[in-house]
């Protein structure tokens, strides 16, 4: 798809990585998003495991604000905790082992 190719060639550079040379907790998200858009879920999970719950969090937040689900706040809260654990856990693993 053309817009994914365009997106792949126009990644935003990470300011933290440019400054200190190490990955930040958000590094890998764009590559994982492109992989997910190409249908490669496994590669997306390997690149950035917090992307899928992150996207679910954003989409569910918008839907919850529109439709006001009964347990929407609790689902958002637990999704947020899972996303945080995955994002910072992935960052710590990259920081320690790579």
């Amino acid at each position, binding site marked *: 798809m053309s817009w994914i190719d365009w997106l792949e060639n126009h990644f935003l550079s990470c300011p*933290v990585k440019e*400054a200190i040379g190490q990955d930040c*907790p958000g590094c890998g998200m764009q590559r994982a998003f492109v992989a997910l858009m190409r249908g490669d879920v496994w590669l997306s999970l390997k690149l950035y495991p917090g992307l899928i719950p992150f996207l679910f969090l954003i989409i569910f*937040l918008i839907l919850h604000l529109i439709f006001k689900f009964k347990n929407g706040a609790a689902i958002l809260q637990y999704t*947020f905790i899972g996303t*945080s654990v995955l994002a*910072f856990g992935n960052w710590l693993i990259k920081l320690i082992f790579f």
Partner: protein
Amino acid sequence: MDNQNPPFPPPPPPPFDPNQGNPNQQNPNMGNQQNPNMGNQQNPNMGNQQNPYGQQQNPNMGNQQNPYGQQQNPNPYNQNPYAQNTFGTQRDVPNAVAILILGIASIVTCWCYGIIGLGCGIAALVMANKALNEYKANPGAFTQQSFKNANAGRICAIIGLILSALYLIYVIVLFAFIGTSMSGLGGLRF
């Protein structure tokens, strides 16, 4: 000035007094009964201003009290129109949606040194504490849905604030380490 007479004489009493069986508790001459010179001390025209309104209001008051005296609610329009809303309708906790969005945004912006996440987390936490204090003061006046949103946003803001602060401290320490090592290299080189 205290003994100065009012420039206009007080108006005559109303021709028909509906408060025949009722003592003049809200009579236009009430001020004159308690302190006849009060109007002369403060404002000579005060008594003259009170009396014409008193003549207009007092017969209506008498009509409300005397003919319907046995009824507890003679005039429903005298009720506070907002009194029915204290238990009937509920409103949202203030800034509940903003708290939820800012709480979630505190972790979304983790890539920017944690500064934006720190700001979002602090803003969400301050608003959440204020909103939840209002909710605790009167829980029945707010909707449960908005309370859940504000509470979830507060928890998200606390988590995002802690993680952003830790990451910011790490970046600052790393910058300090890099600066120290760079200056050390510079010292060795020169």
